[in-house]
């Protein structure tokens, strides 16, 4: 596989985890530990984040964006690691549906990730070495608890909105459940109140791919100067398929050959779709930490909102004043519409104010990141309505 030909750059990834470029960093010292669901405290720790737009005088126009599993906080500006534009520039920016001329947008790198918020690639202050598998196992609720501490630091009592897709959507739901008084409106997109058995199964395949790579070295690859690139690339290739759909793959690639007329009767990437997946795998390992991948997939697996509320999701939102807008996509088979419908049923049962739209697309789970005019219209309309109710002026 071509991914092994590139020299590993573990050192630069470790640097990004401790000292992220082009980011703001909030540091929480020994006096402000993060209490984790695992029963331990994380301290000290830091959160890397980006902000866009201006916080108004009433501090009432803040929108928190929660990123997905392999996302980061570079929502609407150039990513310093990849050099590519922000992952949600179609959605967030001046005049965009999440309008930075009107709202103050905050996006933190999630706890356990590798782009500047404390995670397994960060240096453990006790040892001076990367945390690796010494890092405690974290949950979505831990991620949200850390984000709440960041908002305290920024002196933002209430969020105008919390938005995110996939794992970001899980954080949105957790926000509404854990801090109902701090969330005026919530936009959980393409997500669920719990990770399904099938989704846990896919994640386990990905983790096993990482751990089966001899270069993984039980998570100590930084210290041993190795990098489980093959394993992580395979994990990404498998996961990437689940983000797309059969029709989308067929439309994009069909059975077309890659730069050749005939099959080579070898295990080369004969098909375009193979070449595409290999590229996805190899570019992913350039920007992501293998241990972070283990921790974040685990956090998603553990997510089960009902479990914290007597087995009834509706109890999580009991008495919530938050306005919800739930969005799903017809071809998303990772977080199918039925999962979003279950969220809506729970919200209805708890009497919450909820909108729910299913968008027709063949782009699969990844549709929330792509050009989907209907999604943009819905997000814009929902936020406009909420802004009126909140008394926000148009334009800050």
């Amino acid at each position, binding site marked *: 596989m071509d991914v092994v030909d590139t020299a590993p750059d573990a050192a630069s990834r470790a640097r990004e985890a401790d000292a992220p470029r082009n980011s703001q960093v909030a540091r929480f010292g020994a006096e402000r530990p993060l209490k984790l669901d695992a029963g331990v405290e994380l301290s000290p720790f830091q959160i890397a984040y980006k902000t866009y737009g201006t916080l108004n005088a009433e501090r009432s126009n803040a929108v928190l964006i929660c990123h997905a599993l392999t996302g980061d906080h570079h929502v609407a500006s150039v990513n310093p690691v990849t050099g590519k534009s922000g992952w949600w520039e179609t959605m967030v920016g001046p005049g965009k549906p999440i309008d930075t001329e009107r709202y103050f947008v905050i996006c933190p790198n999630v706890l356990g990730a590798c782009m500047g918020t404390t995670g397994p690639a960060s240096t453990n202050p006790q040892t001076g070495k990367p945390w690796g598998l010494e890092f405690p196992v974290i949950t979505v609720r831990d991620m949200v608890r850390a984000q709440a501490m960041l908002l305290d630091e920024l002196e933002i009592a209430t969020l105008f909105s919390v938005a995110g897709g996939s794992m970001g959507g899980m954080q949105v739901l957790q926000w509404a459940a854990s801090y109902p008084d701090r969330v005026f409106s919530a936009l959980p997109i393409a997500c669920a109140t719990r990770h399904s058995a099938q989704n846990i199964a896919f994640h386990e395949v990905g983790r096993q791919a990482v751990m089966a790579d001899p270069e993984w070295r039980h998570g100590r690859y930084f210290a041993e100067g190795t990098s489980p690139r093959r394993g992580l690339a395979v994990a990404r290739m498998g996961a990437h398929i689940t983000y797309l759909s059969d029709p989308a793959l067929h439309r994009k690639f069909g059975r077309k050959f890659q730069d050749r007329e005939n099959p080579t009767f070898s295990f080369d990437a004969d098909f375009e779709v193979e070449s595409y997946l290999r590229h996805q795998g190899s570019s992913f390992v350039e920007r992501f930490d293998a241990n972070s991948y283990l921790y974040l997939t685990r956090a998603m697996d553990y997510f089960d909102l009902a479990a914290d509320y007597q087995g009834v999701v509706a109890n999580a939102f009991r008495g919530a004043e938050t306005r919800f807008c739930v969005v799903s996509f017809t071809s998303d088979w990772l977080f199918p519409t039925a999962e979003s419908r279950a969220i809506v*049923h729970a919200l209805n049962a708890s009497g919450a*104010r*909820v909108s729910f*739209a*299913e968008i027709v697309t063949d782009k699969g789970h990844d549709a929330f990141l792509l050009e989907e005019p209907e999604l943009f219209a*819905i997000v814009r*309309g929902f936020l406009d309505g909420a802004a009126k109710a909140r008394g926000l002026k148009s334009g800050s």
Partner: protein
Amino acid sequence: MLSRLKRDLTMADAARAPGGARVDLLLVADMVAPGSKVLDIGAGDGELLRILGEQRGVDGRGIELSREGVNECVAKGLAVIQGDADTDLADYPNDAFDYVILSQTLQATRRPRAVLEHMLRIGRNAVVSFPNFGHWKIRLQLGFGGHMPSTDNLPYAWWDSPNIHFCTIKDFVVLCDVTGAKMERAVAFNAWGTPLRFNAPWWFWNLFGEQAVFLLSRRG
């Protein structure tokens, strides 16, 4: 039966009022107390919810079957979800709303009785508007034309009509009795949205009312 009702004669006399809103929706809106909490089943493009929000300061939610309708509503900032009156009302808790509205949708449900019972469980009041199948034009088409009626108000051929449970005003009153719904107010109006004389006898309503709106409450 209908003679016991207080009948209203309050609304505009054109199918579209000066603001451009459909008169049947204005008649429905007129039955809703300002500032109340409302669930609109069959929200369509959100027109009724918009009227209720703007004119009566209502906290409105909606359910709509068609995806296009839902997405249009949500993009307008309305709290509308995709759902089916026949299956999804069971998910709502008791007494969640002051009013549950079913506007021009009753005849398209599979189980009208169950829908009405859910409406009066979820809400303290129910508002139901429906096309009257006892209207003289419809009787003429079936009685003398010998074919299923098709009118401006009900333009479908029988094989592609979403309307599977037509009823007359008289029939609806029977359903109210069976479900234990108490009739608070009722209006019947003609094709131009003109409400019929309130003191007309019930057979007059049933013959000349093209549509009807009922405000119901739980009995007892």
